[in-house]
């Protein structure tokens, strides 16, 4: 009777006790010792850097979940605790916050490099397409992560972001409701965004990375267009350790830069979200081009900015390998592709810089566009009372001055918008201060500067609400 050996004798001889049981030798040969044509190079480090950054985001993200509680009553408080009290919390959150920006920048570099190298061409079309999906999932992570601290910025930016989702034809409102989890932003929005940010999107990214890397290994590194086939074959070396060493050096450099940045720039946390307070919502810098674009499409053309152009852009990007079937990978022989790349890069960077440079809130947040005198000081000064005591007798309860117009033909009509526009604020203040011939008395001895300033605003406001709202 013959016995069947428990394992393949060839494998038993390979690598001793551990190797024969894990198949490590085979795994190492396939994953690490794969020959790279042309040898290791610094320019091939972007992909590995992205993987490194993703792992860093996963690690810091998991650490943050140990202190974070997604609900309206606890989200902001727990992030504040992480930022201000938890040991090293500011550092972990800083790495996660700024790491997301670093990841978006690296992704764009990787994308541009692959585009210039022509690395999306046959047979690597699917590698490119999974890469574009990874870009989409990463931007999804950026969008969902923005809400989680539940500060003012997070609340309003997400409200606008969900408003953009709502403009998608046919399914927009349903999609918004699905993401929001209810009729308005609240607890269920936070839990849903948390699930998306912490589980669903990272899961999708891990799956996509596996596929992306599988395709990458299947077809090998795309060699540069200036290298000849003979040269490449003569310089072939294994992935480990040459390429991994270079990737590691670059990753360490990035880690050092990021750490230095985080040490000097704490991750921002604004005031607790308060839907009753005015706020100038702004997205993270890498969505500013989209923000700027929304200003240009009015009324029913709105969906051009919110939906048509962005999906056209991603559609072309995704299907680009199928649209550009020319065989050459040399950029000098691909004028159309290079022109499109140049236009897209110039357009995106230009829009972003323009949006940030022209934005009042970005340049001078302290003079943000709020009413010059907020409601509460107006009420504290009892301007209505001041007006009643000092002005009403002549100018009337409604500010028209109609009752005295027969006797005083020059009395202004405060409700007249055209007249108001001819008057400067200084004009108002001077007239209340010093009076005006023939009948307006001087008030500077009777009222203080604040009161006069408030009255000027009060008079200013008479032109408001002259007509019924529809």
């Amino acid at each position, binding site marked *: 009777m013959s016995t069947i050996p428990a394992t393949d004798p060839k494998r038993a001889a390979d690598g001793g006790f551990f190797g024969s049981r894990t198949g490590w030798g085979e795994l190492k040969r396939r994953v690490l010792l794969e020959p790279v044509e042309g040898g290791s190079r610094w320019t091939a480090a972007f992909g590995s850097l992205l993987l490194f950054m993703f792992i860093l985001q996963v690690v810091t993200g998991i650490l943050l979940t140990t202190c974070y509680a997604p*609900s*309206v*009553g606890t989200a902001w408080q727990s992030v504040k605790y992480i930022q201000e009290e938890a040991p090293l919390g500011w550092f972990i959150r800083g790495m996660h916050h700024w790491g997301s920006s670093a990841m978006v920048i690296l992704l764009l570099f990787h994308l541009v490099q692959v585009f210039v190298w022509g690395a999306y061409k046959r047979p690597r079309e699917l590698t490119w397409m999974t890469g574009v999906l990874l870009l989409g999932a990463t931007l999804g992570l950026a969008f969902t992560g923005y809400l989680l601290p539940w500060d003012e910025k997070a609340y*309003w930016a997400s*409200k*606008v972001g969900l*408003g953009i989702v*709502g*403009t998608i034809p046919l399914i927009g409102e349903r999609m918004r*409701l*699905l993401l929001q*989890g*209810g*009729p*308005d932003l*609240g*607890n*269920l929005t936070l839990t849903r965004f948390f699930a998306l940010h912490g589980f669903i999107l990272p899961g999708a990214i891990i799956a996509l990375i596996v596929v992306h890397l599988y395709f990458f290994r299947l077809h090998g590194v795309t060699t540069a267009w200036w290298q000849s086939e003979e040269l490449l074959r003569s310089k072939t070396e294994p992935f480990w350790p040459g390429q991994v060493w270079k990737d590691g050096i670059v990753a360490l450099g990035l880690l050092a830069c990021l750490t230095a940045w985080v040490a000097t720039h704490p991750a921002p946390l604004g005031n607790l979200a*308060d*839907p*009753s*307070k*005015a706020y100038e*919502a702004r997205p993270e810098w890498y969505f500013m081009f989209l*923000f700027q674009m*929304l*200003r240009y499409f*009015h*009324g*029913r053309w*709105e969906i051009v900015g919110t939906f048509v152009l962005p999906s056209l852009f991603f559609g072309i990007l995704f299907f680009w390998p199928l649209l550009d079937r020319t065989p050459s990978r040399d950029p000098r022989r691909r004028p159309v592709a290079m022109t499109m790349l140049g236009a897209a890069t110039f357009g995106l960077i230009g829009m972003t810089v323009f949006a940030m440079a022209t934005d009042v*809130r970005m340049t001078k947040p302290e003079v*943000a*566009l709020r*009413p*010059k005198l*907020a*409601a509460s000081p*107006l*009420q504290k000064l009892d301007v*209505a009372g001041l*007006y009643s005591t000092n002005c009403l007798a002549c100018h009337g*309860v*409604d500010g028209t001055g109609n009752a005295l117009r027969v006797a005083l033909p020059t009395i202004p009509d*405060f409700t007249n*918008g055209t007249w108001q526009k001819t008057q400067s*604020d200084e004009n108002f203040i001077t007239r209340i201060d010093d009076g005006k011939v023939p009948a307006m008395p001087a008030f500077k001895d009777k009222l203080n500067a604040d009161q006069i300033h408030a009255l000027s*605003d*009060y008079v*200013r*406001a*008479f*032109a*408001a*609400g*002259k*007509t*019924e*709202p*529809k």
Partner: protein
Amino acid sequence: MPPPSVDRRRFLSGCTAALMALITGSILAPAFAFVTSPLWRRRQSSGVPDGFSDAGAVASIPIGTWTLLPIEIVRQDGWDKTKQSRSVWALAGGTAPGDVKVLSPICPHLGCPIAWMAGKLDFFCPCHGSVFSTDGTFVSGPSPRGMDRLESQIRDGHLWVRWQDFHTGSNEKIAVEV
């Protein structure tokens, strides 16, 4: 024993594929229903019987100028029944005690809070630059309609406002169901 026929193997293969599909489906169906529940779930009422909130004494609203008044609304927010703060733009006309106009500060474009520019005599959305006139009608910018008027009532000298959200990005003023 005779070898299994090709027909039998194909039949078993089909059955196994169907079994796998059944298992996948029986997990995915409730998962799908759970995740999409905001779309089909029966709505709960918003708490306060008529949905009106007290915005303060009418007498304290300055006459003739738009004022941002804070209000409190009661909402079922997931597992929590919460008091939430909102604010509304109110304008007292001064001709009659009940003459108060109330506008929602939420921009009909994409939902930013709209500011009243006392110096320029118009409403301005600081996000994407929509401008509305002193009565809230649309003047310029990306907004598809004018500002949304909110229902209000005077009860015992107090202004009561019925807070509602309206669909953004739509030409028509359609209330969001609560």
